[in-house]
């Protein structure tokens, strides 16, 4: 059994929405291992984003424990969480969230300014196939291109974990596939743990493990015997 990178023990999260308490997570247990590609599947409101936020150090659970290696994320102060995100986590958003005033290369280089041992931004853009678009601003790029810049930006600081929230949600079919290919390549070549949230069941076929969440609980963890290449996926 490989070493565990993430330990999630009996994690619950309760939000107060006015008068109502919403149980986003109910006693979730989970472990993530080095280099694996995980897909979190579940309907809207199932709690998958809450879990991703907790793994990414954006949120803390109401009860239970989360460890990243020996870092206890449950008890960390906001400044510690910032440092954790800075040093170990890469994020890819559904709507890319690039800095509109910076070019593709600059958006990628931006995070390397705060990282200890970053990759060459140019290399990252090559990895996502954008070496031709280095000096384009976000407004000059298509959605797929912007998302690939976002991936390049996320991996440039050489994170141990890459968290992707619906990375293809805003993209059309061919572009979505292209982005998935890039994620697969990053996972394979850099060995970054990759967690992808999606509605799209087909994407699960490219994962090492598929975790299904429903109503705040993990209902199934399935290990794919044979991973599909993204290019072979159709939806």
């Amino acid at each position, binding site marked *: 059994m490989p070493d565990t990178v993430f330990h999630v023990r009996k994690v619950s999260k309760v939000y107060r929405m006015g008068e109502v308490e919403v149980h986003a997570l109910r006693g979730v247990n989970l472990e993530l291992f080095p280099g694996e590609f995980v897909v979190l599947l579940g309907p809207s409101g199932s709690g998958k*984003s809450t879990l*991703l*936020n907790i793994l*990414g150090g*954006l*949120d803390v659970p109401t009860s239970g424990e989360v460890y990243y290696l020996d870092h206890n994320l449950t008890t960390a102060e906001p*400044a510690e969480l*910032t*440092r954790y*995100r*800075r*040093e170990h*986590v*890469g*994020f890819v*958003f*559904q*709507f890319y*969230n690039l*800095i*509109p*005033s*910076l*070019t593709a290369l*600059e958006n990628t*280089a*931006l*995070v390397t*300014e*705060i990282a200890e041992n970053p990759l060459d931004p140019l290399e990252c853009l090559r990895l996502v196939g954008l070496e031709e678009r280095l*000096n384009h*601003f*976000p*407004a000059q790029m298509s959605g797929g291109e912007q998302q690939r810049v976002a991936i390049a*930006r*996320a991996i440039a*600081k050489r994170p141990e974990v890459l968290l992707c*929230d619906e990375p293809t949600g*805003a993209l059309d079919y061919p572009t979505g596939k292209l982005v998935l290919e890039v994620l697969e390549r990053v996972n394979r070549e850099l060995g970054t743990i990759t967690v992808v949230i999606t509605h799209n069941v087909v994407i699960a076929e490219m994962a090492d493990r598929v975790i299904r969440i429903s109503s705040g609980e993990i209902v199934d963890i399935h290990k794919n015997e044979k991973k599909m290449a993204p290019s072979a996926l159709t939806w």
Partner: protein
Amino acid sequence: MTALNKKLVRDLWRMRGQLVTVALVVACGIATYVTMRGSYESIANAQREYYAKYRFADVFASLKRAPNSLEASIAAIPGVSRVQTRIVVEVTLDVPGLQEPGLGRLVSIPERGVPDLNDLCLRRGRNIEPGRRDEVLVSEAFAKANQLDVGATIGAVINGRWEPLRIVGIALSPEYVYEIRGAEVFPDNRRFGVFWMSREALGPAFNMEGGFNDVSISLSPGGSEAEVISRLDNLMEPYGGLGAYGRYDQISNRFLSDEIVQDRITGIFIPAIFLAVAAFLIHVVLSRLVHTQRSAIGLLKAFGFGNTSVALHYLGFALAAVLLGTLLGVPLGIWLGRGLSRLYQDFFRFPELRFAPTLDMIVSAVAISGAAACFGALSALRSVSALPPAEAMRPESPARFRPGIAERLGLQRFVSLSARMILRNLERRPWKAALSILGLACAGAILIVGFYFYDAIEYLVRVEFQSAAREDVGITFNEPHGSSARFSVERLPGVLRAEPFRAVPARLRFQHRSRRVGILGLSDDRDLRRIVDQHLRVIGLPPEGIVLSQSLAGILGVSPGDTITIEVLEGQRPVRRIIVAGTVEDLIGTSAYMDIGALNRLMREGETVSGAFLSVDPLAAPGLYSFLKKTPAVSGVNVREAMLQSFRNTIAQSLNLSTGALISFACVIAFGIVYNGALIALSERAHELASLRVLGFTRTEIGWMLLGEQAILAGVSIPMGFLMGYGICGLLVYSMQSELYRMPLVISGRTYAFAFITIALASAISGVLIAQKLRNLDLVAVLKARE
């Protein structure tokens, strides 16, 4: 309340920080308008009413002595309506509590009835009674400064003897609204006062029985002032006439009228700056509001609201700022106006000076602010109207950027990415950046102007009281004395050094232009009284010829080398021609200087002197003063240090109020611009900044990315504000220069430092307030939401 109005109220509540900062700037605009316009109107009205009610004369003249019979001839001059002849003399006073002698101007009034012209306003006590020769009325300014009340007595040298003057009443005169002696600029009410006493008492005491030495005239409707002055001069010539002049040259009226003109100018200029800034702020705030509410606008239009009603809804923000600004600004303006009026009363004595802002004025203040607000809102409202409903409900396309100035110059290697973000954000909206800089520069300029007055006054003190006048005491004889007086003065107790001077009243004439001045003859070995120009250069006097103030040379239209005519107005009244040897850029008055020997030769007199400048042993000064008080030959004593002290006190009072107000107002502008600028940048970039936080940037790091923009704007604005401030001071110097005084254009390093610190501090405080808001960025929301 309609649903749209409810939305407006809630939007306003949500944006209360911005609403308040904009409203404060509007309030400053309204307050300065109400204060300055109100002061202008109240003082102009007070002047008009005072002059009319108390029959302020139109033409004035002094002479040596004329028989009363001349009065009929004066009255017969065409254009003359009324004539008032008087006896006016200056005497040494023994002011209680004052070591050095004071100067009293005794002005005759009829024992019975009231003066035909320049009537008095009795403030307290009663009028003098016929036959009571020691009774006087005293000017209110002097009485207040020396805490003299009805019933008090004060000693004066009359006819060579100390006489007690019994104060029976305290009065004001339209002739002395601004009560100063001679050619001074600032009042010294402690040492100079006006006394009115019976003509029957004054006549015998000063050898004026059956005669007069002063005349005031009122003109009949259509009477020509110039014509009357010329004929009056001809009539008075044989009687030692010193030259008649109109109201324009009447010293009190001149100061008062200059002040009124200045009030009118600043009353337009200063509020205009605030309203321009307010319009700009409304423009940026409203543009952003419209931008963030695109879909709401689309929805409203889709529901069938017309363009006008949607535009009016957004105009509500601008009008709310004006309303709030009015509620704050009008009371503030009235309060400041009252303070200013009280201050005015220390300088200008009116029977009544009430700061009474009219409804008209307040309505116009509000209307002007409303117009400025609508102007500021215009472009945002136009974009509201132009937005088609469907377009409005689609998200706006992403902001377009292009390589910034650093890349175009090939300097990108040296510019960090966060700096590039800041520069590109600025470059994307160059007009907004330029206007922000301009607004902040205005704030800086206002500060420079506010502090400048201190610099100017300090410099004036340096030039006039420390470089030019270095004597401890100046004494003036009651009439010119021969050379022996020089030695008598040197032997006075405590006198270390004495430098004689000769002062001669004269009319200088060049072609058709002429001016009455006193020519000051100074000794060639002078050290106590020098001639110093505004650059602190000591000017030498040639052995022949006359040196004129540049302002006087300007009035006469002469330059060095020209020959002018001097008509001496005393003694044998010789008329001579003399060459203008040079001019001096001085700061106060219109002066004419000559070497004392040259002036004596011009007068064809011996070594005659009019007075002396003395250096005095401080320990022996009290003895000297009490000696001078008892010396009838000395009619005037000026103690330099005392003059300086009184000058500083009066000035400090008035400057502190106006500078205090200017500083607070400038802070309101700086704060309003930086706060709103940063808040809007935050709302535009919240998404971007939250993404950066998610990526691991700290709050401090994104704080700099956000506030760097404001820091650059403030940084660029500061030198611009300095330049603007310097320019405005230059304009002020130019527009305020008069025959009475010129302001030196000097701005100290301290002023620049104060302005810098104030702007930097106001910017920093608003920056910190915005930085606090970065805590509340919703990091989780950015993962899901499209901007």
